[in-house]
């Protein structure tokens, strides 16, 4: 049984005049201890997906339809009290910007201890011991002194460690990490990623890593979802996606990386940029930028089909698969 299963999730923003769809029919599953990644360009809806799992979408946004199940519990139907039970304890989140994620007026210790004490009934002293232990786990030197410091007294990498410590406090089943290293230096990024990876492996925690950096993803995730304009366009094992991308968008994304061209040469750019929510085109959202777009792409939304180990939403692939199938049939 899946630890987490999201099916046909639709998230909308209720604006004054119109409803804007931020996520459209998103489905995926996550197994216990599995590490998946969600990649895509800015504005694809990655963060919204992350937040909607714990029902934390910011105000004009709401879950329009679909279900999110944690084991057998339906998260979308829960009231605040029940959600509070889940949040932090079962599903924990790490945010992008460590500078903004910790409350500047409370000490590190306060923020750690309150998390423990709001879920379990233990004394302050015990909670403090747990917190210090976790700080130690994330390789913070002299955790006792850090415990009483304020966030602004810590460097960015240090703060991200504290945040990781704070999500570990209650040994959650799932950690959602929304671009946990984008704001950090390369060297620190590597350390944090390693730390995260080690922790997930050691404790059997499932990880949802949200990132736009395929390099980062390839280091951490076993499976990858590629998002474009609110849709999941491709899903499959990370290695598969990197080595053999099916969807033209994924291909474009990978090809645009400087590594893919010889030094000094022009890069393989994708034309245009991702549409904003208000100007989403009809049919396949990628068709204006797609080099293979056909008439059909402009009108219809491709469905998600399995092709090999991965699944793709693209008529090109669909046609190809169908061709194969037809050929198979003909062959037979």
């Amino acid at each position: 049984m899946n630890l987490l299963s999201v099916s046909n999730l639709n998230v909308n923003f209720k604006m004054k005049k119109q409803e804007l769809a931020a996520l459209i029919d998103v489905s995926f599953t996550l197994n216990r201890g599995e590490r998946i990644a969600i990649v895509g360009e800015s504005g694809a809806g990655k963060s919204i997906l992350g937040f909607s799992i714990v029902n934390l979408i910011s105000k004009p946004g709401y879950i329009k339809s679909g279900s999110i199940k944690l084991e057998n519990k339906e998260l979308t139907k829960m009231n605040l009290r029940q959600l509070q039970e889940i949040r932090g304890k079962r599903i924990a989140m790490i945010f992008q910007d460590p500078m903004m994620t910790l409350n500047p007026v409370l000490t590190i210790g306060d923020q750690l201890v309150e998390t423990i004490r709001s879920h379990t009934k233990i004394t302050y002293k015990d909670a403090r011991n747990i917190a210090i232990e976790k700080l130690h786990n994330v390789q913070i030197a002299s955790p006792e002194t850090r415990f009483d410091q304020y966030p602004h007294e810590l460097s960015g990498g240090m703060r991200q460690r504290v945040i990781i410590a704070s999500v570990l406090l209650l040994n959650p089943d799932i950690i959602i990490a929304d671009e946990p290293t984008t704001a950090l230096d390369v060297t620190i990024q590597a350390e944090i990623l390693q730390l995260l990876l080690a922790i997930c492996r050691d404790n059997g925690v499932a990880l949802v890593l949200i990132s736009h950096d395929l390099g980062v993803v390839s280091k951490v995730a076993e499976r990858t979802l590629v998002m474009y304009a609110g849709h999941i366009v491709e899903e499959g094992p990370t290695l598969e996606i990197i080595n053999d991308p099916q969807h033209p968008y994924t291909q474009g994304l990978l090809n645009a990386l400087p590594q893919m061209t010889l030094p000094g040469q022009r890069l393989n750019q994708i034309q245009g940029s991702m549409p904003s929510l208000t100007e989403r085109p009809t049919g396949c959202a990628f068709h204006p930028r797609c080099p293979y777009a056909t008439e059909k792409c402009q009108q219809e939304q491709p469905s998600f089909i399995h092709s090999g180990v991965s699944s793709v939403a693209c008529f090109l692939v669909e046609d190809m698969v169908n061709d194969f199938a037809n050929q198979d049939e003909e062959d037979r």
Partner: protein
Amino acid sequence: MLIFLLRRLVQACFVMIIISVISFAIQDKLGDPVQQMVSMAVSSDEREQLREQLGLNDSFLNQYWRFAKGAIQGDLGTSYHYKEPALDVILKKLPATLELVFCAILLIIIVATPCGVLAAIKPKHPVSRLLMIISSIGLSVPIFIIAIFMVYLFSVEWNIAPSFGRGETTEILGLWDSGIFTKDGLSHLLLPSLSLAIALMPIFVRLIRAEMMDVLQSEYIRFAWSKGLSAKRIYFIHALKNTMLPVITVGGIQAGTLVAYTILTETIFQWPGMGFLFMDAVSRVDTPLVAAYLIVVGGMFVITNTVVDLIYGLVNPTVRLASHGL
């Protein structure tokens, strides 16, 4: 800390010097103090003599020099009307004003904080809409109209609370005449502090609401939600403390408004405090008192701001007073 205070001190001196020059410059422009001291039948020669005695005929520089010399020794001149050192007169009235202001601030804090928080966390709720409407209206009604109608309704028509003065006072520690320990004193305090509070409340309700809404948008609040903390803890520990930072600064700035408002309230309610004294002194042409008042208020402003900065530093760990040099 010490450096911080020292810096404030230098600033205070600067402010004081400017204020003293200005307040002194108006000395003989308000009217003729001698006119207030003698009866109509006194001849102009006699008046001239008196003027001479008071040193009013000296040159401006001479007068200012005399004044400044005294001021350094804490002598801001002697009130014509009270015949006492102006500073003493003002300090005697200080408790009344402070009590009034204190009660008003207390009322504001007690009422405005929950209202602002409520309006921020439930912006669509009918109660918070009502709150916002009321505060909009409250913001638009000038304090003197509020005070006038309070007197009219509460004391004249309904006879609930006394309309003027401080009522019975008790002396504590021999230096503070307090009205807050007797029932009578408290009942006298009711209307003035209420109207002062009502006049300033909307500003704070709206400010707290706006700040709180801002804070509630921030990442760390979202993070707190994602940790599964209770709503109470998030609103009152995480959000409120951050909300209070700008509120404190604005509060410090509102001190000037508060002074203006105390003048109005005290005048209307005959509250025997500094503001009333000031208006009285102006109409009596008691210029030393006027000058002293301006100086004292300037000083109080500097003190308030220092205190506000200190509090700000206490609440906000990122502003270390130490970094100002300890």
